[in-house]
């Protein structure tokens, strides 16, 4: 154990590396009109067009008794028949895809198409949003799909743990609810609820249309028309306060049908507009690589199950950002790996760092650059940065933030954030 920690600390002594150069991509172009923010990033060599469409109809628009209504509404739109075929299937048959995610503050539709089919697919989306079908059969089909997705998610221990932890940071009780709801709560929701939710919250105000890739394949004005397909107006979140739970424990425990326990630690973390963002990216990359190195067989070149069973995720895109460390107990002695992970976090916060941190910074830059390779990521990151009050040229801003990080910044951020984690344990059921 000591040797491994020493090896991790030795990373601090690597030589300086040259700065990371930037892509030649123009910065994202932002326009605002009637409450709709449109962001475009043309990539003429991309094979596809990707559009992220964000509506302020997420978890914070639900009351506690409406758990799952935001997802049910979005899923019902995807099930809405267009020319006799559900929107999702119609888009697939036309050379594209549509999916959605429910976030604490919004619902996010991901629309993608081949360039030559872009106009056709955007037209299908507008048709469904313009006249969504909220009859009993369509809502039932949507509910069935969501129930299946919930069951699928419950098999993913890391997802279960992260869902539990996200609720601990939620400023309002409804934003900590599971994104798809629960089967029992969905069963209480019907066409009237969905119709009312759509009519109330599907408004232009605060929405985003963020497109990346082959924007040139769209007809002029197509994105503006997409942004204008909902009625005007803005909506407000429903604030649901619960009295704080009394107690000193910071552990959450759940049991699921899984084969091995998972241990997950959560620290609060800065958002993308914070001066601490760059240093936290560097810390997260360091934690990720160090944990993987510790879990793996020494000297092995290939990525192995063991190295993938541990990790660190900095969820800066969340309204309440966090840094999550996780260990899959299937790799042997999870307690040892987990306590080592927590020890590293503690050491970083308390021990003076010496030597160059350039190797850490290179890792952070490489990880971020790698995360921006897909059109979906590029379109979504531009929204995240704009929402947080930062300019949406996420790439240069982030690489600058990493480049300017000093050892003192790293220590300050470690000290500010890496203490008193909340722990989630996802355990196998006793009979499994």
């Amino acid at each position, binding site marked *: 154990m000591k040797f491994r920690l020493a090896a991790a600390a030795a990373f601090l002594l*690597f030589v300086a*590396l*040259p*700065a*990371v*150069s*930037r*892509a*030649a*991509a123009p910065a994202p172009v932002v326009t605002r009109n009637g409450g709709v923010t449109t962001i475009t*990033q*043309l*990539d*003429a*060599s*991309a*094979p*596809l067009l990707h559009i992220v469409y964000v509506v302020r109809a997420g978890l914070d628009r639900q009351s506690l008794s409406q758990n799952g209504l935001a997802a049910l509404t979005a899923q019902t739109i995807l099930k809405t028949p267009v020319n006799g075929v559900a929107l999702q299937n119609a888009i*697939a*048959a*036309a*050379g*594209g*895809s549509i999916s959605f995610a429910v976030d604490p503050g919004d619902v996010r539709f991901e629309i*993608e*198409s*081949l360039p030559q*089919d872009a106009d056709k697919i955007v037209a299908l989306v507008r048709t469904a949003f313009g006249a969504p079908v909220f009859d009993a059969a369509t809502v039932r089909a949507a509910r069935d799909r969501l129930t*299946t997705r919930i*069951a*699928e998610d419950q*098999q993913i221990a890391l997802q279960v743990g992260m869902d539990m932890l996200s609720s601990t940071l939620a400023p309002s009780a409804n934003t900590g609810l599971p994104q798809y709801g629960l089967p029992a709560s969905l069963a209480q929701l019907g066409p009237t609820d969905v119709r009312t939710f759509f009519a109330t919250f599907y408004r232009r105000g605060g929405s985003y249309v963020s497109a990346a890739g082959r924007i040139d394949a769209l007809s002029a004005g197509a994105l503006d028309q997409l942004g204008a397909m909902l009625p005007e107006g803005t909506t407000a979140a429903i604030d649901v306060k619960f009295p704080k739970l009394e107690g000193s424990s910071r552990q959450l425990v759940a049991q699921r049908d899984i084969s091995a326990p998972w241990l997950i630690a959560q620290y609060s973390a800065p958002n993308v507009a914070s001066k601490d963002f760059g240093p936290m990216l560097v810390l997260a*990359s360091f934690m990720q*690589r160090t944990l993987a190195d510790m879990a793996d*067989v020494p*000297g*092995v*070149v*290939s*990525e*192995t*199950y063991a190295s993938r069973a541990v990790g660190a995720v900095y969820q800066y895109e969340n309204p309440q950002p966090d840094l999550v460390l996780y260990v899959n107990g299937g790799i042997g002695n999870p307690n040892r790996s987990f306590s080592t992970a927590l020890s590293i976090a503690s050491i970083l916060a308390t021990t003076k760092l010496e030597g160059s941190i350039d*190797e850490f910074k*290179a*890792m*952070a*830059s*490489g*990880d971020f*650059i*790698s995360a*921006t*390779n*897909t*059109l979906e990521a590029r379109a979504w990151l531009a929204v995240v940065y704009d929402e947080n009050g930062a300019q949406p040229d996420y*790439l240069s801003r982030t*690489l600058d933030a990493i480049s300017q990080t000093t050892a003192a910044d790293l220590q300050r951020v470690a000290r500010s954030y890496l203490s008193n984690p909340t722990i989630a344990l996802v355990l196998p059921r006793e009979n499994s």
Partner: protein
Amino acid sequence: MIRRALFAAALAAMLAPLATLAADESASGSLPHGGTYTLTRDTTLASAAVDVWFRAPDAGYDNSQPGISRVAATAAAASTLESGKSLVSLVRGVGGRITINVYPDLVDVSASVPASAARRVVAAMSAAYFSPTIDDDALKIARTDVAVLSAQERFSPDDLLHDALFAQLFTSGPAHYAPIPGDLSDFKSITLDQVKAFAKRAFRSANATIALAGNVDVSLLDAVTAGTPGSADSPIASSVASAPADKTIDAAVTGEGLAWTGPPIADERAATALDFVADYLFRDETGLVSKQLDPTGDAYVNGQFITLHDPGVMLVTIGGSKPNEVKAKVLAAVTAMQTPLDTASFDAAREAFIYHLAADSQSPSQQADNLGWYTAEGNGTYAPSDSASSYWKAARSLDPAYVASIVKKYLAHPVVVRLVATPSKDSTS
């Protein structure tokens, strides 16, 4: 005069790779010191993929050393270069990731790095492979690496079935052997001299294709300083079994696999038709068979047509506690494809297939992988990651009757391998 002409021709050949590309273009040509390159660029990205591909038999040139290709490729990546660092540590140090993929007839070393580091990685990769200096330390690392991967694969139905099905379909040649051997007894006896001899022959620059994607430029290839001109090996053949037999294997996990030999890479339309079939039936979430499975259960199915020089292989692997039930669905669906789909269903499925092609080749790593694989298998202009390639023309030319005829021709009688779980034992037949 003749000398001058030769000199001019040589100069032109050397200058060809240095030609300037427009902002977003594809190119291919010769490396400065032997070998070829293929490149696609997207200057809006900040990353680059640098791959090097070789035609190399996984069990050695006399098929007597299973695993030697993998161990040689790994040892070369782990060897200390003149800079004092290995290729692996260089790539990781610049914030990148390196992956070594070994197939029966190919080796691929793939690095995904910030674009600013691409030149250094090209230089290190070409030094590590075109003039390998493998020593005992590097070999030790490579042996450990292969041993760990071999142990992992014992719990992967997909990997076990893939290797076992190929062993049944091919009676000899590299395709008969697993790139990562399950039984390490022979592997342990491979010597340093054997590894060095294999690397020297397989990793010649003349036998290499460098595939670049992302924010890259042909000028990066100036960094290739090692290598010797010569000719590349031909695609490596394996002998196809005339009547492959089914097999049951004791394993640590359950599973069932089916395989059929298919058309060669040169028969572009037929190969594309079987890609379409795999997409239509087996793609995760949208495939006809995939959608029939209980998403909350443990059953899963993977299906793909593996485009190879000759022949290709249609491979379906099934995992979960009741693979036999899934196999029945697979066979029913494949049989049904012998009847042409109605036009509307076919048109929708073909458009979805073409979309999936594009969606699956977005990142530089995916593009370099795609370009390198198809070039090394002998048909680089057919790589589907390039929407201007002959692949896309073939995809658009598909029609219901043709696809049904290809299914009837190639997918009639699969060879079947069953994994029966006996956790405490090694695999036996």
